[in-house]
């Protein structure tokens, strides 16, 4: 309740600021979807949720460097509940003021925002700042309260603080150190219960030669004392049309899952580890045609070895107006777990006024699930641009799968994107 009041207060506070903006952009998507599911032995269920997404970006708030960015969504169910929650739902995804400095990529944000910085991938109510320093260094920091959406038993903490320092040599090297500390969460059970989450980590980007790039990320969980994640990616482009990549990742579940809020699903106490390695080769046959084949081998202590491999082709024709793709993947799971083939094809055409697309995906399972071993879905979409910045589109999809005898879904979508710029000359 108090958080709802805070959201409304934030919104009201922002209104006068918006009126003063010299450049106001409003964008949104309205979705009204219809779904009819039939599960063997159950009554047919009909759900009709309506969802509104709204984004507001106001630049030049009195000062050319100051801007405000808001984004949120709301939903009302017009028939049966579409989720296991209430008939209405909604959230302020983000809402922050941003000040950009003309030099040093300096930036200060205040409000609700996301942080993607080294070990941090966080949703925060607080402040953040970053700047490039002299001699190749850069520094960023944030602090505040982790955002808790409506989940009551979410175990996010009360305070979070984090940051990253990096050092760069132009087009050759970047090394970053980052850390975060979150207070008021519970960690692993096998380890002594700690009331915080703390990660420290490093990231590396290296370009030893103009054809070769290497990236790596490591995070160490100091609350549980172990390397949670390490991931490496090597990319080689021996010639312009060809690129070859290799990857390796390793996760220690005890440390990686430590701060989860569903321990039954992301259980950190099994002594489990996951690692995978693989590679991909992409060949650009001609500018509009690209083919990628990839392979990945997984090893998870408690389930065994799995493989995923396949290929996909993408075509971009008629000056990007026509896009098509075809793919096949095989997921080969260890004994006891089902394996499957995936086949997908799509075609999309966009013209000045119209867009149209078809998309088909099918899965063939080695072992039957509820008596069936196939699942497929066919989806068609057609759109009409009422005005350059207002588009109406409709999707219809039909599928059969082990869960539902047949599943029919329809959706009407209205997207708009308006820009109001005060004064001339811009």
């Amino acid at each position, binding site marked *: 309740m108090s958080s709802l009041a805070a959201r409304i207060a934030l919104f009201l506070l922002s209104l006068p600021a918006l009126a003063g903006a010299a450049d106001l952009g409003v964008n949104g998507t309205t979705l009204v979807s219809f779904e009819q599911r039939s599960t063997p032995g159950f009554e047919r269920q009909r759900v009709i949720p309506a969802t509104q997404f709204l984004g507001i970006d106001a630049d030049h708030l009195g000062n050319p460097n100051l801007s405000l960015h808001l984004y949120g969504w709301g939903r009302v169910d017009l028939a049966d509940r579409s989720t296991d929650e209430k008939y209405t739902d909604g959230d302020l995804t983000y809402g922050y003021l941003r000040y950009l400095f003309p030099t040093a990529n300096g930036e200060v944000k205040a409000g609700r925002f996301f942080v*993607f*910085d080294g070990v941090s991938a966080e949703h925060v109510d607080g402040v953040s700042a970053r700047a490039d320093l002299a001699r190749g260094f850069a520094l960023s920091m944030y602090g*505040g309260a982790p955002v808790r959406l409506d989940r009551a038993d979410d175990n996010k903490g009360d305070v979070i603080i984090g940051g990253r320092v990096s050092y760069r040599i132009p087009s050759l090297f970047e090394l970053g150190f980052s850390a975060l500390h979150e207070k008021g969460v519970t960690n692993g059970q096998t380890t002594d219960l700690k009331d915080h989450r703390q990660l420290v980590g490093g990231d590396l980007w290296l370009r030893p030669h103009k054809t070769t790039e290497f990236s790596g990320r490591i995070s160490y969980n100091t609350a549980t004392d172990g390397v949670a994640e390490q991931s490496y990616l090597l990319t080689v482009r021996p010639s312009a049309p060809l690129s070859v990549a290799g990857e390796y990742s390793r996760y220690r579940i005890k440390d990686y899952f430590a701060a989860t809020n569903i321990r039954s699903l992301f259980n950190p106490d099994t002594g489990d580890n996951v690692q*995978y390695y693989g590679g991909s080769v992409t060949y650009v046959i001609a500018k509009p045609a690209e083919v990628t084949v990839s392979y990945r081998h997984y090893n998870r202590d408690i389930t065994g070895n799995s493989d995923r491999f396949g290929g996909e082709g993408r075509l971009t024709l008629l000056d990007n107006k026509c896009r098509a793709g075809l793919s096949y993947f095989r997921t080969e799971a260890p004994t006891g777990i089902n394996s499957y083939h995936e086949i997908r094809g799509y075609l999309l055409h966009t013209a000045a006024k119209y867009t149209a697309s078809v998309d088909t995906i099918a899965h063939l399972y080695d072992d039957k699930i509820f008596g069936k071993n196939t699942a497929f879905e066919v989806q068609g979409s057609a759109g009409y641009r009422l005005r350059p910045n207002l588009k109406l589109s409709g999707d219809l999809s039909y599928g059969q799968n082990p869960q539902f005898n047949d599943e029919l879904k329809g959706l009407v979508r209205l997207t708009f994107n308006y820009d109001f710029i005060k004064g001339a000359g811009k």
Partner: protein
Amino acid sequence: MTFPKLFLPVSIVAGIMTITACSHIFSTESSLPAAHPEAVGEGRVACSECHEDQIKGVLKPYATFNHSQLFVKEHRFYAGSNDKLCASCHATSFCNDCHANELEIKPSIKLGDRPDRELIHRGDYMTRHKIDGKIDPTSCFRCHGRANNEQCIVCHK
């Protein structure tokens, strides 16, 4: 309630900014533009079609950020250290289409008119997730591990 808690981080950040400002250790290079100056349409962008050399401020070649299939699949390697660059073309809401927010609408439904996008969980994911989740639950953890899992606890209590 949160304001006293905010005081500490705010003062730390402000303190560091002041110290660095006073000791003239900021870079003097001009910043990246707030928004990419040229409109780039839908679909995969290849930076090196329009740019050469290195992005100032980012200090990496433009070609590093060509949106190839590999870049899109492995964008986590780039997003965590170049967020300012990403933000010059992408509003955070673009990322939120896939990086869930209690929304309970699959990206492939919200963007059902964009089959060319690399959207996760296409088709009947309810069946398939039981396999993918067992093979490697670490990827799932990124988006569903600490939040965005209200709909999961119906079955995963």
